[in-house]
């Protein structure tokens, strides 16, 4: 069934709220009264409910099936976290209340910070970034502030980034006006140590490295890289998107990392919500800690205190580089992540990494003879395949992935990382059972066989059984229709 847009369901005069006319209304609006109709549709509560329930049913979700998107860490989202985030003491608290009335909120932030620091082996954490990319920006700003503080701000203008990096890495560096210099990869999918060293120099500000990397492999030379970076007077930024592979087992601080963002919505299970909100706290090394942005929480004799202004920070001996965001960060996500961490504990978190890695290796081992794997195992939490197994079949990575939809699965990450041709990157996470993995592996084997068996139409037209067939993305970009307008013909709103 087609579901119209709310604007097409407009029933003027209907409403989903009951609000009384205010008594004794005497406006003090000056000349600013809005005159024209806004154009919002009228709908009753039952109509709104049904519209969004029906829309929801057009979505795939982790609660309904495996979501094997590499690099996205789509794991189970515990409902305890949701319940805790909705406690009035957390959800219904204003960021600018007097601090004595929010001691529990500050305690939570402080406790979460402690957990993040312990898990990463880092001495400081900036809590306020609102997402992974925002955390990257924060970490790189701290690096820049440190460079500026030692008078090398103008001198160090280059950032080294591996070819396989997430797009956010170069985009972040560019935002800060750095030049991005790509490091090539070796045949075994890792940073080319020699090439990297050759690129180091007095104009290098930092390296941005993902570890485990986006091929799902652990950078064996990471400590040597860190040492070389530090020796060259630069800093080591680590992209923490793949922290799920090592949490509780390996501490980035022990590897020589200076800054790393943590995606609470990946490693610590705050839900992705169709694209956010996320949260991206950044852990910082001793060298970068003084430059952490405002605000931050300190624990004094009379309770917790939020340091909100540069003046207060100065009194503490810090030199915050500025402010990333209004208020104090994604409290709602902090509560969820805290509930998740407390539930697992130090033992459970270590098990998370082990099971995530075990599940990925199980997939790699089970499928390497059916699909094609560019690199030898063991992998970490992701299993990477390329499109060699599709050679000559006329089926492309995209088709293969779309065919998975017809089998009831969300596709894996496609065409990323770029260093592999026609990449298929699978991240099962630790919250999938062996039973589920076996079914998934069976389906992929079956599809690989079908592709090799010349069953091409099954792939090129896929998906056949989804709410929509393939959508014309070119049309969308060429002639952008970004909002509903009364004039728009109601094309398919049957």
């Amino acid at each position, binding site marked *: 069934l087609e579901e119209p847009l709310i604007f097409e369901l407009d029933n003027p005069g209907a409403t989903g709220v009951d609000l009384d006319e205010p008594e004794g209304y005497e406006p003090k609006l000056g000349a600013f009264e809005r005159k024209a109709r806004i154009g919002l549709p009228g709908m009753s509560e039952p109509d709104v409910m049904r519209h969004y329930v029906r829309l929801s049913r057009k979505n795939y979700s982790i609660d309904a099936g495996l979501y094997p998107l590499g690099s996205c860490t789509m794991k189970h989202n515990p409902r305890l976290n949701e319940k805790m985030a909705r406690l009035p*003491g957390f959800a219904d608290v204003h960021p600018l209340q007097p601090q004595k009335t929010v001691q529990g909120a500050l305690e939570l932030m402080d406790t979460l910070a402690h957990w993040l620091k312990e898990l990463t082996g880092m001495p400081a954490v900036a809590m306020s970034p609102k997402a992974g990319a925002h955390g990257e920006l924060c970490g790189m700003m701290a690096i820049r502030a440190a460079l500026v503080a030692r008078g090398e701000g103008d001198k160090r203008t280059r950032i080294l980034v591996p070819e396989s990096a997430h*797009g956010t890495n170069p985009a972040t560096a*560019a935002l800060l006006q750095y030049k991005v210099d790509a490091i090539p990869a070796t045949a075994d999918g890792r940073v080319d140590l020699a090439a990297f060293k050759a690129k180091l120099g007095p104009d290098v500000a930092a390296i941005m490295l993902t570890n485990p990397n986006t091929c799902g492999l652990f950078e064996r030379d990471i400590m040597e890289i860190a040492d070389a970076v530090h020796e060259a007077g630069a800093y080591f930024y680590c992209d923490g998107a793949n922290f799920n592979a090592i949490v509780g087992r390996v501490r980035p601080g022990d590897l020589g990392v200076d800054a790393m963002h943590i995606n609470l919505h990946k490693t610590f299970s705050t839900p992705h919500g169709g694209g956010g909100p996320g949260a991206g706290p950044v852990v910082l090394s001793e060298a970068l800690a003084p430059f952490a942005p405002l605000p931050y929480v300190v624990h004094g004799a009379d309770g917790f205190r939020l340091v909100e202004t540069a003046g207060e920070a100065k009194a503490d001996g810090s030199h915050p580089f500025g402010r990333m965001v209004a208020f104090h960060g994604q409290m709602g996500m902090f509560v969820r992540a805290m509930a998740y961490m407390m539930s697992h504990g130090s033992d459970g978190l270590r098990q998370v990494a082990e099971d995530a890695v075990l599940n990925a290796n199980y997939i790699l081992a089970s499928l390497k003879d059916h699909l094609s794997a560019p690199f030898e195992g063991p992998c970490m939490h992701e299993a990477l395949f390329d499109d060699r197994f599709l050679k000559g079949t006329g089926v492309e990575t995209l088709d293969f992935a779309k065919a998975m939809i017809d089998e009831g699965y969300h596709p894996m990450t496609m065409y990323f990382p770029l260093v592999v041709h026609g990449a298929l990157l699978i991240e099962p996470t630790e919250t999938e059972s062996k039973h589920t993995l076996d079914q998934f592996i069976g389906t992929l084997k079956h599809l690989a066989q079908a592709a090799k068996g010349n069953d091409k139409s099954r792939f090129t037209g896929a998906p056949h059984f989804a709410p929509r067939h393939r959508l014309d993305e070119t049309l969308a970009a060429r002639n952008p229709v970004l909002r509903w307008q009364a004039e728009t013909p109601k094309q398919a709103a049957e």
Partner: protein
Amino acid sequence: MRYLPLTPADRREMLGVIGAKSVDDLFRDVPERARRDGFVDLPRRQGELEVERALTKMAAKNVSAGSVPFFIGGGAYCHHVPSVVDHLIQRSEFLTSYTPYQPEITQGTLQYLFEFQTQVALLTGMDVANASMYDGSTACAEAVLMAHRVTKRKKAVLSGTLHPHYRAVVENLCEAGGDPVEALAPALPGKTEDIISRIADDTSCVVVQTPSYFGELIDLRAIADAAHAKGALLIAVVPEVVSLGLVTPPGEMGADVVVGEGQSIGNGLNFGGPYVGLFATRTKYVRQMPGRLCGQTVDAEGKRGFVLTLSTREQHIRREKATSNICTNSGLCALAFTIHLSLLGEDGFKQLARINHANAVKLGRALSGVAGVELLNGAFFNEFTIRLPKSATAVVDALADKGVLGGLPASRLIPGDASLENLLIVASTEINTDHDRADFVAALKEVL
């Protein structure tokens, strides 16, 4: 552990298939000196009951807005969110889905984003809007960067009554790119700020907030004209989206970009986050916009459908040439916004705005009646500034002890300016009753 499905038997079997002796084998690429054999120094796993107890205890140490007469605003507002909203955003299909990169099986997300974009465009009086930003402050900073791209100039001029946090975020992001920012000193409500004289040939944009930090409604028309005359853009900042139900939208006053904080609709206070940033502009600037965009198209059968579009602006395609490094947005908060606004509809949204304004006017009148208190605003929506006969910080502190959360001292976010010392910024929404107002007035009389 309840979230981990593998049993010891499963693990043994899987290691067998892999051909590894132990899980440690799989971690063999980790340098030996970085491997940790034991656990990190943190507590062990806990059951749901225990976690719930510990966090409930922590939460109970906070004074929740709903439990007291509550009058704090300053960029986050306490509104009633209908129960339908929270029910719907918790639907598994919304809560636990990813960014809609596979449009065939994420039409639910894509369609509500399209509805959201349309709603934001309508509210702000603009042509188009994106699918949300992190919050109002980052939307504001991104708008400045966009103005830089559009005008190919580098200098932003910020009103002195822009929310101080927004100013800080703009400055931080601009400084990152080495771009200068000129920020005015705050003009008190009722006094007109001379921002027009600051607009020069190198000005990329002027950033003005309405209602301002002090709650004052600002006339944007002359500023827009002046900016346009110099080839600069006007960026309007709306910290309280409910105001758009009652006041002229910035789009009708000449703004080129409207950014705002959408928290008031559908989203709780959450101690500051997650919120939802609104970003709207003119059609001609679409390809310079930051953030995710959802567009209408057709599928292979010709049926209407929605996709993420113009992603050539985005980091995962453009890498270092992207318009912004943004990856995540505030999808679920945008959904909450869209659902709440659908429930309100044209009539309900306007009525909500009227109630907010009426309550603020009543409160202003009541507080003005207290000896020594002076209401400073000329025109305001649901927030205004009063001058007290003594330090606002001390007064707020004393009010809190009496169980009233009575506003935001202007100096909390702008410390060190003696002229702001006694100013208190007070907000009132539909949640306030006559009883709340009476409590506030009584408590204020006692502490003054």
